[in-house]
Every structure is written in structure tokens, then in C-alpha cells.
């Protein structure tokens, strides 16, 4: 419905340019810009470029804005049509999305061009004659106002389609869009202004293309950035899965501890960037188990004091492993100290009270909480309220009461799905031991998922809790 309305509006915008009689439309410029926009959008569809040049929508807005500055509104709106109809669409339904995007851009460009014209922007651009210089400081104003109008209309249309299609409340659909897109659109506006200036000058359209290159490259780099970041996330998960290879009892534990840590921190009102680091602290807290011999980790029966000492080295191993990862910052301290206890009887250093880093205190609570509520092969998980009571009982001696209270509040408010193992979509990827089909015949010497009952060995973070409750049932 919204799409239809927008399409009708778009047609109305363009209609005035279509009669061949309209004299003032510079068809040469229209044709050139249209072809250019089409040529820019097409590589996104090509399978070869498609993967290496993932061009997001908006890479070529400077071109559209330049058209808005150079041409009368109806003709400028015409420029957007072939390119946006041909451009890449990621999700189905393809046809409806194409039509919507085209209509959206036509209306937006029309508005921007109209605003620019009303402020007298056309005359500020100068011309090819040496005597016709651009009216410079003033030329920036219409361009910026037009870019502002462009941004407003585009986000308003985006918001309304979100509201219509996904039944979001209109205010929420709009609120997030404008602040994030205003800056880029202003930059696009300035680039568009320079393109229009050079286009009109004696150097002609070719020199205007030079402006596009930096914009294009920064878009390309930006997409590379997102790819690298995704790869980085996957590597962190691989680090966690490397622990799972050795210690299959605690599958999914790391991700859940990360989630619980974030819940606590959000309740405490920590800043968003620290939340991210804390999440990594939670996810990676047990990475040091990589350093513990597999035989000890997977031992059936009670541990000897010697073996317990080896296991208690895991926070230090973990710290050693992540030492080189610069961005983890505070998370490294959390990994080292997540087994410290408030009364000073924990390990590795026996810190007490406020000496224990804040992140470590958060992770300790999250770790114990998940260890109690999740079901292990040797015992069932406890109900959430029971676990919270248990934590409250140990607050002050083992855990920081502030963190326990925060967790209790957060769990009450948001709930806790203890067994939702698949926190990340890739969690379900088969582990190497089972996945390497070629080695299937010769896997005898490798660890496998055990189904034997296993007594508690103090690895659970809940190790200081009532030992009787931890016995296998």
C-alpha cells in the first residue's frame, strides 16, 4: 500500500519532465548522469564483483545529489530511475523492493532538487565561461540545506516502510535512522556540490568523476571493515570452540556467561563499549583450559590435590593466551581474576574485596550462575530462582553483593533461558572431531563426547557453593 502510494507520488514527480516539448531540460546532461548512475549500480549485481565489491545502498548518493543540483527537479528525479531499478536487492520480494527503492529515491531527489532551486542554488554553480565564477561561500548553503532535505525525506520514507511492513511504532522506526544518516548525507551533499561545480566548469563531466573515486573507495574499505570484523568474531568463537574440543561438558557455557555478564553490566549502567569488552571477557573466561591437559579436564572420579592445582592454573593460562589481543583491555584482568573470592580465599592471587577488578567480579557471578542453572551430563540444572537464592547466600563471602543484586534484578526483568545454547548462529557448526569426514576411520585416539556421569571437580565456578547440592543425582 505504502509502496503503491510512493510509486504514484514518484510518477507525479517525474511527469513534468516527460513531454518532449519542455525546452529547459538539458537532455544531454540527464542522459549522461543516468547512464553513469546505472553503470555505478550494475557491478553490484554481477556475481564476480558482487562478492568483492559489496556496494551498500548509498555509495552513489553524491551522483544523485549532483544531479539534483545541476538539473531541474523533474529531470533530476528521472536520473535515479534506471540505476535504482537495476541495482542489487538482497532479500525477496525483489520486484516490490526495487519499485519501492526507485520510488523512494525519485521522491527524495525531487525534494532535494526543489529545495536547492528555491534557495537559488542553480545560479551559484557558475559556468564554463571564465567570467561566470561560482558564488562560493554562498553555494555551500543551498547544497547543505538540500542534503538535509534529502536526508530527512529519505529517512522518513525508510521509517514509514519499516512501520508499515514490520508493524513497528512510527516513532521508534524513525528515531534510530536520522542521527546515523545525517552525517554521511551531508558529506555526500558536499561531494555532490563539488561534482556539480566541476561538471559545469570548463573541465567538464570527466573531472566531476574524480570526486566519486574517494567516496567509492571509502565505501569499499568500509565493507572490507565489516568483513574483517565478522571474521574476527568468528575467530573469537573458534578460540572458545577450541576449549569445547577439550572439555565437552561445558558446551555453550562460555557464550551464556558472556550473555549473563552483559545482563549484569547493563543493570549497573555501564557504557556500551565496556559492555562489548565485558561480553568478550565472559566468553573467553575459561580459555585457559586450553592449557590444562585434556586427561585431567576429562577425568572421571575425584581429582587428586595435584590435579586440582593444575586446573587452578587455568586463569593464568587464559591470561597468557589473550595477552597479545590489545582491544581486550579490562577483559584480560577479568580472565585472570574470575576465580578470586571476595573474602580472599580464591585463586590465583587471593585478592579480596575491591582489589578484585570489577569485570572479574561480574564474570565470577555470571559464571557461577550459569554453572548452576545449566544441565550437565552428570546432573540436571537447578531452577533459576534456586540459583539466585544460592548466589545471594554466598554474596559477601564469595561474590560481590552488588553484582548478585544486579543479576537478580536483571533475571527478574528479562528472564533467563538457560538452555538456549545457540546464542550465535554458527554455534551449531559441527566440531572438528566429528566434522573431519576424511579422518573418520582413524579417530580412535581422539576425544569424543562422553556420556558417563562425572562428579564435580571444582571446574564449574560454582565450586565454592554447597558441595552436597552439586553431587550427581
Amino acid at each position, binding site marked *: 500500500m505504502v509502496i503503491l502510494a510512493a510509486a504514484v507520488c514518484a510518477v507525479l514527480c517525474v511527469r513534468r519532465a516527460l513531454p518532449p516539448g519542455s525546452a529547459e531540460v538539458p537532455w544531454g546532461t540527464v542522459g549522461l548522469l543516468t547512464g553513469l548512475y546505472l553503470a555505478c549500480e550494475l557491478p553490484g549485481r554481477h556475481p564476480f564483483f558482487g562478492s568483492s565489491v559489496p556496494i551498500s545502498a548509498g555509495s552513489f548518493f553524491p551522483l544523485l545529489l549532483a544531479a539534483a543540483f545541476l538539473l531541474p527537479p523533474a529531470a533530476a528525479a528521472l536520473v535515479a530511475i534506471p540505476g535504482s531499478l537495476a541495482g542489487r536487492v538482497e532479500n525477496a520480494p525483489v520486484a516490490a523492493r526495487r519499485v519501492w527503492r526507485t520510488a523512494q529515491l525519485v521522491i527524495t531527489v525531487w525534494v532535494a532538487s526543489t529545495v536547492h532551486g528555491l534557495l537559488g542554488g542553480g545560479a551559484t554553480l*557558475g559556468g564554463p565561461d571564465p567570467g561566470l*565564477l*561560482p558564488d*562560493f561561500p554562498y553555494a555551500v548553503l543551498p547544497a547543505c540545506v538540500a542534503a538535509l532535505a534529502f536526508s530527512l525525506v529519505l529517512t522518513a520514507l525508510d521509517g514509514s516502510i519499516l512501520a508499515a511492513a514490520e508493524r513497528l511504532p512510527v516513532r521508534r522506526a524513525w528515531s534510530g535512522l536520522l542521527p546515523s544518516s545525517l552525517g554521511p548525507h551531508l*558529506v555526500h551533499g*558536499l*561531494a555532490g*556540490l*563539488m561534482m556539480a*561545480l566541476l561538471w559545469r566548469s570548463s*573541465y*567538464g*563531466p*570527466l*573531472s566531476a568523476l*574524480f*570526486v566519486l*573515486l*574517494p567516496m567509492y*573507495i571509502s*565505501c569499499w*574499505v*568500509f565493507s*572490507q*571493515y565489516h568483513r*574483517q570484523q565478522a*571474521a574476527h*568474531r*568468528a*575467530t*573469537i568463537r*573458534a*578460540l572458545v*570452540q*577450541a576449549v569445547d574440543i*577439550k572439555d565437552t561438558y561445558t558446551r555453550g557455557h562460555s557464550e551464556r556467561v558472556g550473555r549473563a555478564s552483559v545482563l549484569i553490566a547493563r543493570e549497573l549502567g555501564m557504557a556500551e563499549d565496556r559492555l562489548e569488552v565485558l561480553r568478550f571477557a565472559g566468553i573467553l573466561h575459561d*580459555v*585457559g583450559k*586450553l*592449557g*590444562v*591437559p*585434556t586427561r585431567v579436564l576429562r577425568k572421571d572420579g575425584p581429582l587428586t590435590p595435584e590435579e586440582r592445582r593444575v586446573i587452578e592454573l587455568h586463569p593464568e*593460562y587464559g591470561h*597468557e*593466551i589473550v595477552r*597479545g*589481543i*590489545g582491544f581486550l583491555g579490562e577483559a584480560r584482568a577479568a580472565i585472570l581474576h574470575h576465580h578470586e573470592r571476595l573474602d580472599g580465599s580464591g585463586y590465583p592471587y587471593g585478592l579480596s574485596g575491591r582489589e578484585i577488578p570489577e569485570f572479574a567480579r561480574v564474570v565470577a557471578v555470571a559464571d557461577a550462575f550459569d554453572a548452576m542453572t545449566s544441565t550437565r551430563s552428570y546432573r540436571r540444572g537447578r531452577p533459576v530462582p534456586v540459583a539466585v537464592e544460592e548466589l545471594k547466600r554466598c554474596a559477601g563471602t564469595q561474590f560481590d553483593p552488588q553484582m548478585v543484586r544486579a543479576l537478580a534484578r536483571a533475571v527478574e526483568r528479562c528472564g533467563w533461558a538457560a538452555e538456549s545454547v545457540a546464542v550465535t548462529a554458527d554455534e551449531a*557448526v559441527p*566440531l*572438528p*572431531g566429528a*566434522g*573431519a569426514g*576424511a*579422518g573418520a576411520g*582413524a579417530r580412535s*585416539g*581422539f576425544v569424543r563426547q562422553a556420556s558417563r556421569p562425572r562428579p564435580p571437580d571444582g571446574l564449574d565456578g560454582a565450586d565454592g557453593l554447597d558441595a552436597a547440592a552439586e553431587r550427581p543425582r
Partner: protein
Amino acid sequence: MTGAVPAVRGGAVALALGGLAHTLWHGVHEPWHALAFGVLITVGELARWGALPGEREPAPLGAAGALAYALLGRSGGQPTTHGVFQVIAVLVAAQLVAAVPHVARGSGPTADQLARRIVTVTFAAVCFQPLYNSGRTADWFGDGPFFALFLLVLLGLTALCDAVLGALLLRSGAFPHGFRSRGGTSIPYGPLLRDELRALLGIGSAVCATGAVMALGVAVAGLWALPVLCVPLLLTQVSFRRFVAVRTTYRQTIASLARSTEIAGYTPHGHARRVAVLCTAVGRELGLSGTELTVLEYAALMHDIGQLSLVDPVPDGATAPLPAAEQRRIALLGGAVVRQTGVDSEIAVVVERQADPYREQPLPARIVRAVNAYDDLCGEGLSGPLGALERLRLGTAHDYQPEVVESLAKVLARGGLTPVPPG
């Protein structure tokens, strides 16, 4: 070629002194333009603050501003009169001003970077200013689209000159003084130049395009065009910096993952890092560059990751002396772990195939295999590096590619490992 660094530095110093002296003697033409471009270059150079080690061009705005000033023939429709010497003088003055806070912080740009910038910009100015001021370009190209093309071609040449210079400096800086007299062989020049040229496609082309646009924009609209034109390039710089930051983090994480086998006690201390550094050096020797080197480096870092799946460590963590079937099984398990890390599947393939006979392997896997065996054998017995190389040579019929082993020997003979330029 060993004299390249002193030659470039000396040339730059001579140019700088000549430019400053000439400008002081004759006075500054169009002081407002000189000031505006000087401020632009200074601001651009200041952006070296917080540059990360892997960045190709830490001050793109400075570069673009300097190039634009070198290629400026008109401003707001009026011809300009600054010559080559004033371009150099403004550039040098701006660089000196911008260096003050850096030096105060104790982390200035290296002399080589400054020298390279001076020589490159002088090249552009010498190619352009005399031609333009004598009116030749107007005769040849007019003042229309062909002039814009001419500028672009000129900038392309300048970029080429810069790349050649960069590779030269990198190569000369790569080994210590007096090294040649000891009979070492040098790093091949080709891959270094290829790396530099590849970098041109990224930020280099953005710098060139912005330089051309600035020169043309100022010619059309006067100095007001400068701030407007900075914006897209600044955006490019910001996105590059974020990209480099996340790439650095990613590399650190991969290295941590690689180190986990050492901490788990499966491999000797520092093994993964040593193998990665040696592999990169050998790969460079064999003419790999850019992405191929990154694939090689990551694969080398993670080549032993499959051992995490073993209940008991292999003796000394050395896979080379194990039976071939066992080696291949560990390699396959490692490949499966690597596939989950989100790196290119190419890297996983290298890890998987690292234990195959060399004729069935891709080149990176051959390198990883030989270098890993070398490091394992070195640590194993009393034979030491020479003995290890000897055993590799004996295995060239089936396991190790002869060319790879010879390159390894060459790299080792060089004594030091070559530094890896970021790419």
C-alpha cells in the same frame, strides 16, 4: 642499490634547502594561497597522530594537499605565479610545523617518509609548473576536459614514481649496513614493488583523485573549494583507519589462537610465530606478495591447531618425525578448526594439505610444510639448523619442494629475517 637511502635523503635535504632559500630570497607569491595550502598540509600531516603501524598512507590529506598545490595553475579563474621552489618551501615548512608535536611526543614520522614525500611532490611540480607557466599546456590541451586528463596522467606518473621510491627505500632499509660485503643476497625487488603498486589501488588512488580535484576545484572556485574537498578524503581516511584497527585486532586474535597450542603444551614455545615469520620470508623470496602473503602467514600461524584435538601431546610437539598418515590426520583436524575461524577457505586448505606430498600441494602449503619441518627438526636433536636443512634436502624427492628448500636456505643464509611490510 645500497646507496638508495642516502641518495634519496640527500636529494630531499638539498631540495628542501634550495626551495626554502629561493623562496626567502624572492619572497612568497600569493601568500594567501601559500598559507591556505600550508595549513591544509599541516593539518593533514598532523593526522599521523594515532596512525596504526599497518597503515599505508598515514597522512592522505597532507599528500593530496601537497600534490594539489604542485598542480595548481589557476585559482578562481586567475593564473597563479608560484613556482616549483615555492611548492617545496610550503611543503617543507608545513611538514616541519606538523612535526613539532610529534617530536615532542617522541614519535615523529621517520625521515624516510618525509624525504619520500618531498621527492614525490617535487617530481609532480617539476613536471607541471614549467609547462603550465610557459603556456604549453594551454596550447596542447586547452583548458577543458583534456587538461583534466593531463592532470590525471601526471598524477598517475607521480604515484608510480612514489611506488618505485617506496620499494627502493624498503629494500635498502631491510638489511643492516655492511651486509652485502658479507656475501648475502638481497630481497627480490619485484614483490616489494608489486606490494607498493597494489597499495596504489587503495588509498593511493583516492589521494591522487583528490589531488586532481583540489587543483581543478580551486582553479574554478578559488580557495573556498579546499575545505569542501577535504571532506570525502577525510571520510576515506577514517574508514581506512577503522579497517586497519580491526585488521590488527584480528591478526592478534589469530596469533593468540595459534599460541594456544603452545600453552596447552602441544608445541614448543614460540613455534607458531617462528614458523609464520620464516614462511613469510620464504614466500617473499619466492615472489609472493599482498594477499598471498597474508594467507601464508595466517596458515603458518595456525598450522598446528589440529593438535588441540589430541588427548596426549605429540612428543616435543614436532609433527615432522611422525608417520605420514598421522601427520595428515592432524592436518585435517586443524583444517576443520580453521574453517570455523571465519578466515578465507584458502587458509583452511593450506592447513589441511600441509602434510601431503609436495606435488599435490598448493605453493603456500609447500612452504608451510618445509618451514614447519625445519623448525621441528632444529629443535629436535643435536644436528641444529644445518643438520635440519640437510634432512630437508634429503626429503626433496617426495616431501619438500626443492625450490622452497633452497629459498629457505637463502633466507637463513641472510642471517636476519626480512621485516614484513604491512599489506
